[in-house]
């Protein structure tokens, strides 16, 4: 689907910062150098990254410095992951298209700081890959960076799946009793960062931790990219400060919040936020008090007042069931069953809620990756948020409007 649709433009919104795209759209080596200057020295880079509080932008929000600290030796391979298996996610391809040199800079800085002989790889979706290859040809220091095309599957962006792909196997998650920082590519310590994370490394290396923290919140310092989609909104990639409110992200791309019924925050493994809670802030991790909305890898889907969130979720659950890698029994058997029971329950036919809730409780935690966990969390969220719709489905009166 992404091969035919053009990537979103990166014209800055007046209300939002422009750090990652500060060199403008289609920033080639000349524009990049004019805006950002040459690669900075790497002295103290890891300490600066620690002070900056930068967390991974691939969805896990794990602190970058902590991941580096977890290495059991110099990283033999450093990977920039732009696999972006989430169909609604466009931020990584957009970043690689418009600002590839920042990503390359970040990869080179980490290599210089940690292991100049490391194997360096950028994995990109087809619509980001040409731009990366072109950018690498533009610079003398990019010669040794490999570019790999990501597999077009939901789970193929998961870290162990990327590593499996580099080894020539199908890009599917693997059982990993040890972290990649201990045993990754070639069974040696491996660092894998989302490509947006690397772009922030390039900026922090130049401007420092204080500069990075001058935007965002103490809990979520700096900026992050969002992929915003939805009824009547179109597709956007937007850079926002950490801790931005959902409503502010929506209005920045021209959406009318009054026409929004609910927002799925965090993508297909995310959580529904009803319209009355659009003033909630995006948070890097799930908050125990449920007062924030975990942003995950930054995917936001807004549905209009005519759309039924229960039905949309049913379609997503079917998609996610089909995207199981087919490796782990509880996922292979459980996800299609969840989609079926959810559909029966959400449509109002099956009144005994325990059949779907029992699955939601038992699915998580039993797989080589978190696909079952995220899928169960989505079902849980929909059944918790759309209770009024559930009542109407039982009464046979909901969803007169157009919906998918």
């Amino acid at each position, binding site marked *: 689907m992404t091969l035919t649709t053009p990537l979103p433009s990166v014209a800055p919104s007046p209300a939002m910062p422009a750090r990652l795209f500060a060199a403008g759209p289609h920033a080639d080596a000349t524009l990049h150098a004019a805006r950002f200057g040459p690669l900075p020295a790497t002295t103290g880079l890891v300490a600066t990254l620690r002070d900056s509080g930068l967390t991974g932008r691939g969805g896990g929000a794990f602190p970058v410095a902590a991941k580096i600290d977890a290495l059991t030796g110099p990283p033999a391979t450093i990977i920039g992951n732009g696999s972006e298996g989430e169909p609604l996610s466009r931020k990584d391809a957009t970043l690689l298209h418009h600002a590839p040199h920042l990503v390359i800079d970040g990869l080179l800085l980490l290599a210089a700081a940690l292991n100049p002989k490391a194997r360096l790889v950028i994995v990109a979706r087809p619509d980001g890959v040409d731009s990366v290859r072109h950018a690498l040809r533009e610079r003398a220091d990019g010669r040794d960076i490999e570019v790999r095309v990501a597999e077009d599957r939901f789970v193929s962006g998961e870290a162990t799946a990327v590593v499996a792909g580099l080894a020539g196997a199908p890009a599917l998650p693997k059982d990993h009793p040890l972290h990649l920082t201990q045993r990754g590519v070639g069974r040696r310590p491996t660092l894998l960062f989302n490509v947006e994370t690397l772009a922030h490394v390039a900026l922090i290396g130049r401007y420092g931790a204080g500069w990075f923290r001058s935007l965002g919140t103490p809990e979520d310092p700096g900026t992050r990219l969002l992929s915003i989609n939805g009824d009547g909104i179109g597709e956007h990639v937007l850079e926002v400060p950490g801790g931005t409110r959902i409503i502010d992200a929506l209005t920045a791309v021209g959406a009318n919040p009054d026409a929004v019924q609910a927002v799925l925050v965090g993508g297909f493994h995310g959580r529904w936020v009803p319209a009355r809670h659009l003033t909630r802030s995006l948070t890097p991790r799930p908050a125990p008090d449920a007062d924030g909305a975990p942003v995950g890898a930054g995917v936001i889907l807004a549905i209009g007042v005519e759309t039924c969130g229960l039905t949309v979720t049913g379609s997503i659950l079917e998609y996610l069931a089909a995207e199981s890698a087919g490796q782990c*029994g509880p996922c292979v058997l459980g996800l299609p069953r969840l989609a079926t029971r959810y559909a029966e329950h959400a449509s109002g036919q099956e009144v005994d809620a325990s059949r779907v809730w029992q699955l939601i409780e038992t699915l998580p935690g039993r797989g080589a990756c978190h696909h079952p966990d995220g899928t169960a969390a989505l079902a849980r969220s929909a059944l918790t948020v759309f209770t009024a719709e559930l009542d109407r489905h039982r009464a046979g009166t909901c969803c007169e409007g157009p919906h998918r």
Partner: protein
Amino acid sequence: MTRPTPSPTLHIDWTRCQARGACLELLPDLLHPDEDGYPLPAAPARQRTNIPLRAAQLPAAQDAVALCPRLALTLRREK
């Protein structure tokens, strides 16, 4: 600097497990079958792949590791 010995965990490789059930027989108070016969640890969801073991469960866990026909189980001592 000495660290306390971390409690051992039983790691399940879900890509290997095919619900043969030997572990369920050996560790009835640790693992229960789900509706397809796959092990469902009583542990919280985030500990269902690396399941904490009590000392008394260790011998049975070692048997389960040795007897799993799919070689899906390993005993881990480090975190």
